[in-house]
């Protein structure tokens, strides 16, 4: 690991955090331009991570290492590889969209609102770049505080229930991970994540540690049956809160599986893979049906998120069956499919929530039945909404297709029925998304509210256009993000195919 001369990662973490506090301190009047400047600057700072990224290697890049709590052996270690880099850029990009979306909509204490989002962006970049286990945990948990406040202060009518449930659920999941991390720190004498990858762990130890990780990441991503916090949190959160929650916070769970569960406890993951595949399939199929029954648009998208995250866990845990068959290419296909699915879902779910937000700002209802025939009054918006809905349903040419297709392809290599059940999503996803679109967008104008709608303005147009651009970019040119992760994924495949005991 070579230390980089210029601390890009630190800047991407601390610029938004410090600026967030400054925004809160300076008050409401200057909040908007400052937040815009901060988000743009953070995005600019993070761009070199993509363009200066060395693609051929799985080694940690842009590494930084400083003693932080030397008495405990805890270091401020940052660094990224091909798995974390796309997620960091996703975070900084979504942050820009968030600021645009909140520009006029938030009237109550905008400085606190925008400041909280900036702070959260910094913390989330920290989650994806921390290579010290305790540092990771600090960032992982710290993101709860701004999100707790965002949902609690600016959320809907049932916000208190939703935000406390959100906090306690995720807190419960992650404290046991802390115990596991401390335990491994004791065994290995260091909290370095990369050191933990090579830590010798026996059968029993791996099982317990795997369980601790599972609790943390399964709640976060979330997997069925510990997903129930997500619909509540999504529904009550303000629009931008839902977008960040779906686009980035869920990805921390998937990232955790890839960075911690798989490499640290490969044998336990391998032993548990049937279970993991089974609950992933439950998420994909059962939650898909649940989504079909929703009357609230945000709830529908929330359930659709859970279903899509089922693909991520499926792609990750299908790996061990393919390893048993000696099909390393298939393993890489599944894992890369999972990562692309995470990034793609980041764009699509954020866009879907923003679309609902656009309508909510005008009509103040999230019920599907309050709408109908929106296309007649908001043609431009309707085009965007239909586009994102198709992407959500996995239309080829959009990013939603790529990840799902790769994971289904990998599944076919192991077992037809796994692939069959996973592929059901192509039908279910299309059904619940398009049926919602049909009821909301098409048809005759349903009521006076819809008749009075005005189409999206410039601000809303650009916010959706940015996301649409990336949905198409990844859909048509998957190597745009696939290319940076090959080396890292292959390295991971190599690592997990060798048993630790």
């Amino acid at each position: 690991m070579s230390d980089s001369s210029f601390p890009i990662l630190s800047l991407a973490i601390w610029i938004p955090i410090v600026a967030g506090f400054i925004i809160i301190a300076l008050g409401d009047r200057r909040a908007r331009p400052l937040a815009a400047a901060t988000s743009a600057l953070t995005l600019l700072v993070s761009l070199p991570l993509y363009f200066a990224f060395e693609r051929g290697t799985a080694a940690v890049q842009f590494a930084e290492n400083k003693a932080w709590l030397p008495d405990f052996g805890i270091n401020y270690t940052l660094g990224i590889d091909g798995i974390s880099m796309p997620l960091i850029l996703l975070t900084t990009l979504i942050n820009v969209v968030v600021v645009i979306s909140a520009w006029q909509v938030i009237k109550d204490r905008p400085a606190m609102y925008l400041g909280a989002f900036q702070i959260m962006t910094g913390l989330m970049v920290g989650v994806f770049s921390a290579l010290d286990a305790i540092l990771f945990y600090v960032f992982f948990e710290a993101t709860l505080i701004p999100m707790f406040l965002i949902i609690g202060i600016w959320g809907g009518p049932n916000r208190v229930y939703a935000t406390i449930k959100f906090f306690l659920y995720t807190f419960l999941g992650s404290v046991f991970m802390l115990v596991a991390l401390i335990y491994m720190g004791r065994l290995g004498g260091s909290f370095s994540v990369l050191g933990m990858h090579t830590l010798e762990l026996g059968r029993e130890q791996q099982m317990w540690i795997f369980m601790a990780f599972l609790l943390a990441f399964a709640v976060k991503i979330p997997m069925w049956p510990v997903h129930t916090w997500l619909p509540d949190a999504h529904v009550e959160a303000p629009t931008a809160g839902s977008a960040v929650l779906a686009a980035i916070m869920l990805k921390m769970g998937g990232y955790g599986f890839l960075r911690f569960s798989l490499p640290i406890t490969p044998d336990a993951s391998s032993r548990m893979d049937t279970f993991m595949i089974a609950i992933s399939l439950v998420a994909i199929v059962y939650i898909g049906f649940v989504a079909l029954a929703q009357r609230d648009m945000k709830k529908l998208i929330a359930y659709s998120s859970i279903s899509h995250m089922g693909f991520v866990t499926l792609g990750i845990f299908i790996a061990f069956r393919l390893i048993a068959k000696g099909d390393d290419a298939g393993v890489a296909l599944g894992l890369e499919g999972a990562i692309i699915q995470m990034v793609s879902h980041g764009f699509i779910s954020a866009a879907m929530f923003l679309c609902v937000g656009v309508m909510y700002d005008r009509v103040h209802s999230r019920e599907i039945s309050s709408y109908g025939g929106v296309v007649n009054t908001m043609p431009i918006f309707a085009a965007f909404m239909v586009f994102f809905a198709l992407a959500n349903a996995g239309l080829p040419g959009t990013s939603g297709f790529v990840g799902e297709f790769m994971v289904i392809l990998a599944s076919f290599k192991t077992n037809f029925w796994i692939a069959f059940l996973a592929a059901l999503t192509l039908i279910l996803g299309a059904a619940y998304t398009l049926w919602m679109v049909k009821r909301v967008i098409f048809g005759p104008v349903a009521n006076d509210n819809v008749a009075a709608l005005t189409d999206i303005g410039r601000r809303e147009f650009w916010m959706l256009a940015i996301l649409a651009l990336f949905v198409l970019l990844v859909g048509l040119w998957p190597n745009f993000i696939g290319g940076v992760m090959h080396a890292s994924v292959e390295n991971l495949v190599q690592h997990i195919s060798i048993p630790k005991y």
Partner: protein
Amino acid sequence: MDNMLIASPEIFLLTATCAVLVIGLFTSAKSQIIYWLSQATLLVAFLLSFSQVGDVQSVREGGQLTAFSGAYGIDAMSTSLKSWILLIAIGVFLYSRDYLTDRRIARSEYYVLGLFAVAGMMIMVSAINMLTVYLGLELLALSQYAMVALYRDDKRAAEAAMKYFVLGALASGMLLYGMSIVYGATGSLDLATIHSLLTGGGVGPQAMQSIGARFGLTFIIVGIAFKLGAVPFHMWVPDVYEGAPTSVAMFISTAPKIAAFAMLIRLLVDGLGSLNADWQQMLAILAALSMIVGNLVAIAQTNIKRMLAYSTISHVGFLLMGIVGATAESYSASMFYAITYAFTTLAAFGVLVVLSRDGHEAVMLDDLAGLGRRNVLLATVMMLAMISLAGVPPLVGFYAKLSVLKAAINADYLWLALVGVGMSVIGAFYYLRVIKLMFFDDPVDSNEVHIAGDVSAGLAVNGLGVIVLGVFPSLIMGACIAAFS
């Protein structure tokens, strides 16, 4: 080496306190002179104590610096704990000032009793002889009984004081009884001598000694657990917190916990360290029970002082969880916990005391409703304190939890660590509820909150400290580790 000057902070403090007591008789109730004199006394004592940090380090190899025929000594632990006790007492006096003025509670007495209590704590921290430990403890306890009763027209305060006194006296009796048995078994009151007599025992008279000492140990632990408020010896804590004037509850819940920690280290580690196999088990049970009962019962409270009382009980459990490991690492972890706990609780109680204005006590949770709209500073400081007490990073409470968890795991007390983290999730609920009330609910009482400039500056520093120590925990961690290396 017998050098009285090593006790200079205590000597100065006691002398100055006597002077303050006399001056208090001749000043009018309105003047703030007693307040300023008390603060000056604490500040000078702090500087004196702080200046000893260097002395102690230079003679680290030689162990403790002792005085008064081995009854009193300073080491790295005592100097840094004393500095913290004094700093926190300064904060307590600052936040209490306007509360006392408003209520016309006999004011100079509050400060004088507070100063005596601080002197008691400092003696406890520096005692290396069982009698000195007891002396310091009683000086602290007697001052506290009187402080609880200061609001003498209030029935509940009188009741709380009576309960506190009776149970406290019982606990002191237990402690003294245990000490006398240990004295009977070993023939010494000097903790270092007791330690060397008990070490290596197993055959002959030493075995007898250690059986006697074990018997005494049980009583000593009961006494300590009473003073700390560990379950099942916690009954007095909520009643006293609720009944006492808020400023006194603030005093009781902060600095004395640091002193109680020091007493525990002195008696169990410095004195009975070789019996660790016995006290580790007892403390583990006390720790688990305290964490479970404290957190579960706190959920049901509607009175915020009672809630904080149960929260204290649960934190005592965490503090004990650190010591259970019986290694240098675990002692420094607990020391870190004690200091940061006192510092954070100071902020939480500080907000309550400041909010209790004009005869209205902010005691019910609903009094905090909508505080975020009434006064952002108070609400933010309270929020930071709550998040820190819940143990969420990046605030300092997280590192305190991290250090005791790490100590427990490294000492193979994994089950205790699991109980701890499980309970901290439950604890998070009632801390979050406070934040919910302040930021998500609308105010019930829409009066503006006026705070004096220096008090709000103090609160701001206190809240900022919770963040800064969270980002740079090594600022205190280093001292805690040095204390036991």
